[in-house]
């Protein structure tokens, strides 16, 4: 991403921008965003603002740029991800260095967190009053990465936990938070275990852990492996961690040139992207790569209740789309337009 950003800069490829006046004519704006799917759209590189798309559970309502529609102002540059806790949505705006807090049902702005945040990546809520945000710090400095601990009552960063470089996605289990160190602009191979306000332990996994799911007492970590352009190419792997002992119990390797992403789970099935296909693997008998079920180059994947939600970012300089597949037939059942670079899929319940 850094190289790309620099490249886009040095080649003056000021590609595109969004002005958020989309879809004002045909779609009405519901005043209630209960029950449905949110898509966070990063928005174009360098300029403009990311947005959030809402699709109601019954697919009857699609609303673009809901935050701006409700509040009259933009979220900011590169809407990286979103998380929920209690009634609030915490929207992580990477390049603007802030967390925007909104009511998850009305999307009315509640607050924003701008202090002690630096290149934020992901948010996760824990125990109702506490939230964690992974931060790269200065993306070119591998020694200043941290996890910010938020007090969700005051919406302030109460402390920061220094961590190994490139913290990215998080999952929580019981009272602990597991942080995958994808490695920022480089590569890392760790999962940090955070308890309270300190790192309790780190677990070494495969190179470039890019996505995780918890299934029962198991944590599945999908590692992309080091790509060929970054030195010695290493294969992707699926690493299974027993959450009771916090140790790696199994590692399944892909072929050396395979670099999977986007692990998601529905019941006992895991799904992920690899080489333009979505694969399915059953947790009870893991064999890789599993069964290829759907063709497509997707930017984000989420499985839920027998459906697979997948975003297509197209050329990254125009509106993307969300496709919904029925996992019993592997057929596409819905296709919605989103904002520019749809990078995250979330469910409001």
């Amino acid at each position, binding site marked *: 991403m850094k190289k790309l950003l620099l490249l886009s800069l040095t080649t003056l490829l*000021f590609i595109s921008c969004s002005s958020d006046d989309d879809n004002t004519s045909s779609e009405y704006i519901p005043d209630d965003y209960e029950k449905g799917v949110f898509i966070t759209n990063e928005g*174009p590189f360098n300029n403009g603002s990311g947005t959030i798309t809402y699709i109601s559970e019954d697919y009857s309502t699609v609303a673009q740029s809901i935050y701006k529609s409700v509040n009259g102002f933009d979220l900011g540059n590169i809407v990286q991800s979103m998380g929920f806790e209690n009634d609030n949505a915490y929207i992580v705006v990477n*390049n603007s260095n802030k967390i925007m807090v909104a009511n998850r049902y009305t999307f009315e702005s509640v607050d924003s967190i701008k202090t002690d945040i630096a290149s934020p990546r992901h948010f996760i809520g824990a125990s109702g009053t506490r939230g964690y945000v992974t931060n790269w710090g200065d993306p070119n400095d591998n020694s200043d990465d941290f996890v910010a601990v938020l007090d969700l009552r005051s919406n302030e960063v109460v402390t920061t936990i220094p961590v190994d470089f490139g913290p990215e996605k998080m999952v929580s289990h019981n009272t602990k938070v597991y942080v995958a160190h994808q490695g920022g602009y480089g590569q890392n191979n760790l999962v940090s275990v955070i308890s309270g306000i300190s790192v309790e332990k780190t677990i070494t996994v495969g190179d470039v852990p890019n996505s995780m799911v918890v299934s029962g007492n198991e944590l599945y970590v999908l590692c992309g492996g080091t790509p060929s352009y970054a030195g010695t190419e290493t294969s992707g792997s699926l690493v299974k961690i027993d959450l009771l002992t916090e140790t790696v119990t199994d590692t399944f390797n892909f072929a050396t040139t395979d670099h999977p992403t986007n692990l998601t789970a529905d019941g006992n099935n895991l799904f992920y992207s690899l080489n333009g296909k979505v694969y399915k693997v059953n947790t009870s008998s893991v064999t890789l790569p599993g069964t290829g079920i759907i063709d497509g180059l997707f930017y984000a994947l989420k499985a839920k209740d027998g459906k697979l939600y997948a975003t297509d970012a197209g050329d990254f*300089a125009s509106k993307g789309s969300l496709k919904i597949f029925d996992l019993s037939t592997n057929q596409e059942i819905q296709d919605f337009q989103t904002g520019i670079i749809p990078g995250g899929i979330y469910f409001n319940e």
Partner: protein
Amino acid sequence: MKQQGFHIIFMLLLCTFAAQAQLDAIQELPEVVLADAKLLHFSKGFKVEKLSDSVIKRNATSLTETLRYNSSIYFKENGFGMVSSPSFRGTNAAQTAVIWNGININSNFTGQTDFNTISPLNYDAISIRSGGGGVQYGSGAVGGSIHLNNNFSFDKTNSTNLGLRYGSFSTIAANASTTQSWDDHYLNVGVDFISSENDYDYVGKSKTNNHGQFLRFSAKVNEARKLKNGFASWNSEYSYNDRNFSGSLNTLGRDAYKDINTRNLWQLQQNIGVFTTKASFAHLFEEYKYFPSSEKYYYEGGKANTFIGALQTEVFLLKKLRLNGKLEYDYVSASGENVGDNSRKTLAAVVLLNHKISDKLSYGVNLRKEFLNDFDNPFLFSADAKWKLTNNYALRLNGSKNYRVPTFNDLYWYAGGNFQLQPETSYQVEVGQDFVFGNLKADVAAYYISSKDLIKWIPGNGGLWVPVNINKTENYGVEVNLNYAFNFNKRNRLSLNANYSYTKAEDLEKEKQLIYVPFHKAGGSLQYDSKNLSAYIQGLFNGEAFTTTDNSDRVDAYSVFNIGIDYKFAFIPNITFGGRLKNVFNTYYENVAYRPMPSRSIEIFLNFNI
């Protein structure tokens, strides 16, 4: 003052709109040696507009500003003074070649010139040549080319010029140059400097551009010596830019960019009989440093050295047939954090012909073939004709094949660079008409460009972006220029310049308009001159431009107006002073979405001519 005299001659002779016919006359002025005579002799069926000195001085902050107000080129500018890239006739930023004294100076890394890094005050002539110039100027001369020339003369000259400017946003600028010519010597030395806090308000947004400071310094030396049957010359230029990059409406600026360019050209010309032979050697150096954080020392950068050796011979027979043959060898060596250490060699053979059948009709045929380089070596050609049907009407026609070679970034960028890339190619035709009705001059041009194998970075497997020769585009459009002058009496004169362009540039696969190509652009100025005073109003209309490839988002249309006044005391005519009010109506506008341009500002200046 002699140099100024030439400018006046040029201005008179080279009125923008009837450039060709009048260019013919210039070659009769042996005392002016043109740095790039090809532009004059082998572009007769092309539209070549020369910008007058007064026009340049009015918009002297950068070459971006000069051309934005005085041509139909659209500039994507990331905030005032920041990175600026052109779209000429709807082509991409690497398809406008910038030619310094006949040499293509587009960056080896980006294929482009950042027009904000160039001071328009460093040259004796700035010309805009529309249409394909690949045969003569090489890679990137697709939409058109911008020519920055330092000409010279051996007529006795002793002139020195000093200019000082001060303006809003703590902008300070100064330029000084002296031109000396004695016996067989010509010497021109100059420096130019501008620095600005650039902390303008984002109109109506209660935000300020607080990380857009820029500084540019450039220096030039142009020297020539008359020899028995010719001359030897040396053109040299140095420029240094140090900029913090502005944020946008949604981000705070953090990064910074520094670049250094040096350019040197040595030429030796000998006239033997009907043959004029010229040997030239040039060295170009470019270096950039990109700082992700302006407050830290960490940067990524690159540098490139270009060596060019060329030998050309021209014959001019019976005052009708001009034939030029040229061999040129280029060696580029580039290195950088992201492109490794690579080089490129090119040998090009060029044949140019212009035949004047009669005073009314002339035509040209130009061919270029390249050897040695790593691509399918393109064979380029162009043909043009100019037909003066009556004293009031002339027709010109041209067609050409042009190309743009992949840059070092495209080929070697780590990671993603694709060394199997081939050049972008494009074909184009143009029909132009000149009209003269008394004091009204008009030029109407229509063109069509078809391009294929355009290099585009696309996301591949595993999130890695890779450039491929994929895009096909089709551009067509119309350009209209008008120039009208009305003399009340000997001392009072009113003149009007206007231009309008319609540009359709379509991605053939998506069937959508290309991003950042406005359909409509118009500009103009109305000027009143009396003996000691001149006043003008200048306006620019920029139509809306799409910012996404599916044309779902856009940057809005805008109009901006500037006014200005220059005054000269009757008793000290070598001092001129005045002021300009820019963006009179304090309009909010953007050239790149979410990158606001300056609020209303003023500038005052003082010029001494000695």
